[in-house]
């Protein structure tokens, strides 16, 4: 649905949260990566622990690496994952 945000989670974060994806209706006022992270952390439990400030988390918006100030809007795919360890 174009009105929703698609969230995807990888690696340790996927395991800690117990989910690899979800659709989220973006609440008014949540327009950046930082605001979205705060919203998800406010769910408490494993969300609060995994997404707490200070935990090293990387975010990609529409498959491009993003910053806390990167805008998010309905229809976007937003990925949360730990620092990468390939190669």
């Amino acid at each position, binding site marked *: 649905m174009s009105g929703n945000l698609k969230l995807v989670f990888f*690696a340790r974060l996927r395991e800690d949260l117990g989910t690899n994806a979800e659709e989220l209706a973006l609440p008014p006022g949540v327009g950046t990566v930082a605001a979205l992270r705060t919203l998800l952390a406010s769910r408490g439990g494993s969300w609060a622990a995994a997404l707490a400030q200070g935990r090293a988390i990387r975010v990609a918006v529409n*498959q491009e690496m993003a910053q806390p100030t990167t805008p998010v809007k309905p229809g976007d795919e937003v*990925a949360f994952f730990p620092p*990468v360890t390939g190669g």
Partner: protein
Amino acid sequence: MPVRVQTEDFDAGAEIAALRRGDPKIGAVASFIGVVRDLNDGESVGKMTLEHYPGMTEKALEAIVSEARSRWDIIDVTVVHRVGELKPTDQIVLVVVAGGHRGEAFAACEFIMDYLKTRAPFWKKEETPGGERWVEARASDDDAAERWTPPRADVA
């Protein structure tokens, strides 16, 4: 296809031959192969699982290759990265760079690996006698990638 993510093993010799294809402008081919070791951070590793972000991983690798092409006068590049279950001695990643001369080929090959390690979405999980664990990112890999950052124009 210069960039591939696959579960199957690769044949470096065949990849190099395919990249060269008898092009007489190629005077140098540099290659790197990353291999699974049986020891990491003091624990023995029996098995490793590599996860990736389908779509973004390929795009990130293509962007790294494009960046290398913009920095050095190179002729062609192949990157193959495996995902799924791997065991010690298995090959993980192959980078091949063909150029006119060795300087560009060596530099671009090392640059691509340094950027791949810090920018391409792959994650390793190891199986050790103490259980499964996600591999932590290393500051030394960030330092290695940082070396390639061009000096900022606004810094005297």
